């Protein structure tokens, strides 16, 4: 899907008659046909235990208070909602706000979720945390919160990702985590997730698996979403204070989709709010070298849930490509799959080159180095903003900072650092 059709679709879709888009998943963890609990029997009792523990924690004001305390005093929330005035003038259309989640401790939105899950793991009496990571942002956020609470932490990371994200590997080690290289398969995020699941199957008693995005078996997609909706709830309040009304358009990048669902979910039942998720088109959707599971994938079952996947005709999972390691995953959260099919959220895609151009635009215009992941969202903003009127309020989630990407960007621009 291109930016052009997005613009024509405006004004926002009316509600299709449903009462709400916000009550999912159902009690079996399904969002329509998506989601679910497709795991080995060995893990099923653990998944049910996590579900039970989370359901109890969710009802407990003390859990919410603890979460909010650390979000405020440790993560540094609320993150600012910032009017990007120079960018707004430069693009000459919609009034553009950045949700500055890159200013969180550890430099991305990931810590909202790792904090929530570590608090849950402590409540469950688990003594060891495992996680998967692609770019290393989730690994760093997990290692950080584990250090804060003195929990041993092992992070599974594809061998290929370890090579291309070495600064984050070292950060995790400094934080006391053990980084476990995964050579199996293609040595990227999906293989790291396989390895973490295999570890969990073998260490069922003491271990909590801290999944980094809104994927995996139920209850993870719903739980991770709940921890990330702090983003959208803050935007709602902050924009109300700044402009006295709801936003017109929300834009966020989508790998697994946790920052996007965190921004979108609190607005799903406001029919006038249009939402656009931006996937990684890599070298182009027609090249096969991309990570746009929603735009170019097919429904399938992987890592515990049914969702859109990059796969061949035989149902074998294909490796994606994106310049943004955090978007380099062949699946996407099942709630996004459902929101796509229901038409409530639209999904666009942006190539590596477009994301790089947006990276440079943001640096020069606003003095912010964005991570390459939200640079995808920004590239789509740059496409649609000029066509929108000046009173159109557009909020983009700047979900991570770009320090981690300077070497990747330098290589892509052909410069020596």
């Amino acid at each position: 899907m291109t930016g052009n059709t997005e613009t024509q679709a405006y004004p926002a879709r009316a509600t299709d008659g449903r009462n709400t888009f916000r009550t999912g998943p159902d009690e079996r963890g399904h969002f329509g046909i998506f989601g679910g609990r497709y795991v080995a029997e060995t893990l099923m009792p653990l998944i049910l235990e996590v579900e039970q523990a989370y359901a109890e924690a969710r009802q407990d004001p003390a859990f919410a208070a603890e979460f909010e305390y650390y979000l405020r005093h440790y993560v540094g929330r609320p993150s600012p909602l910032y009017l990007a005035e120079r960018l707004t003038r430069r693009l000459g259309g919609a009034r553009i706000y950045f949700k500055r989640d890159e200013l969180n401790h550890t430099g991305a939105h990931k810590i909202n979720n790792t904090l929530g899950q570590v608090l849950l793991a402590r409540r469950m009496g688990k003594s060891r945390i495992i996680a998967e990571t692609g770019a290393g942002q989730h690994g760093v956020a997990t290692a950080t919160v584990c250090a804060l609470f003195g929990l041993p932490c092992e992070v599974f990371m594809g061998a290929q990702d370890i090579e291309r994200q070495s600064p984050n590997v070292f950060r995790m080690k400094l934080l006391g985590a053990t980084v476990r290289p995964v050579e199996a398969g293609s040595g990227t995020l999906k293989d790291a997730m396989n390895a973490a699941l295999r570890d969990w199957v073998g260490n069922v008693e003491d271990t909590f698996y801290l999944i980094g995005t809104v994927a995996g078996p139920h209850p993870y997609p719903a739980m991770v979403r709940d921890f990330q909706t702090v983003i959208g709830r803050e935007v709602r309040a902050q924009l109300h204070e700044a402009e006295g009304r709801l936003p017109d358009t929300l834009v966020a990048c989508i790998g697994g989709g946790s920052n996007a669902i965190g921004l979108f979910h609190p607005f799903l039942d406001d029919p006038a709010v249009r939402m656009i998720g931006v996937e990684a088109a890599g070298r182009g959707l027609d090249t096969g070298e991309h990570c746009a599971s929603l735009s170019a994938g097919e429904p399938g079952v992987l890592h515990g849930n049914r969702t859109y996947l990059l796969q061949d005709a035989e149902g074998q999972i294909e490796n994606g490509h994106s310049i943004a390691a955090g978007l380099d995953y062949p699946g996407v959260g099942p709630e996004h799959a459902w929101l796509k099919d229901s038409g409530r959220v639209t999904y666009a895609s942006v190539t590596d080159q477009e994301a790089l151009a947006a990276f440079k635009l943001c640096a020069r215009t606003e003095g912010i180095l964005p991570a390459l992941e939200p640079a995808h969202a920004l590239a789509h903003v740059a496409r649609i903003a000029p066509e929108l009127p000046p009173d159109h309020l557009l909020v983009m989630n700047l979900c991570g900072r770009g320090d981690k990407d300077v070497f990747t960007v330098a290589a892509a621009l052909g410069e020596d650092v």
Partner: protein
Amino acid sequence: MTGNGRLARRFRRLSAEGRAGLVTFVTAGDPNPDISREMVCQLPTAGADIIELGMPFSDPMADGPAIQQASLRALRAGQTMARTFAQVAALRTIDTETPVVLMGYFNPIYRYGVDRFAADAATAGVDGLIVVDLPPEEHDELRLPATAAGLDLVALVAPTTDDARLPRVVGPASGFVYYVSIAGITGTASAAAADIAPAVTRIRRTTGLPIAVGFGIRTPEQTAAVAAVADAAVVGSAIVDRIAESLGPDGTPVADPVASVGEFVAALAAGARSAQRRTASGAGAE
């Protein structure tokens, strides 16, 4: 146990012979479709009582390195679902009695289409299915077409499956119950023999189906120990290791994987047959 399919007949015969069966696992198409076809066709004469055939998948989450590598070898050699069915059909031209159970993950089945999959599997001569990532909470989607096509859907029970959950897991099952004897992935740790017997007894209280035990069974001695307490012993990674050992660094055979697997399966079968049954078999027992 009821039913007149090959699985039911085979377990009745094993019961009549007063012994436990040997279930052998290899991945279809490993190391390539031709060798794999020949290897599977010889399994009954080598001593396999039931053939478990893996449907290769790019992301086998419950499998250890040996079976992961087997999947990748098969996929690289061009294995497809259609070829897996053709391999079963080839076996059926020379053997009409040895049950074949396909083992794998749901996505390739889902992509193939559950109705077409069940129909084509039955036509090829498949008897049962083990789908690792399809717990009872999700399995109706496949169970209904599988049952309609006459295929058994084997239930997996794990050490983590507690008594409260057990009826839900084995209740809808048919064919047999597969007890995963360790909390872990295939081909890694082995359960202590002393832990297996009480687990089998626990499952027998809930189901009359035969019980096969797998994961971590690597030698004829371990096979014999399991055969003494269960209705069948499943050996997978240790067989797959024989295939891997017969391949050179570039993946082409440097030894004869068919002969190597055949000899090993014969030794495992001898182990299974040597066992003194300590408990009655599931067939009509207790």
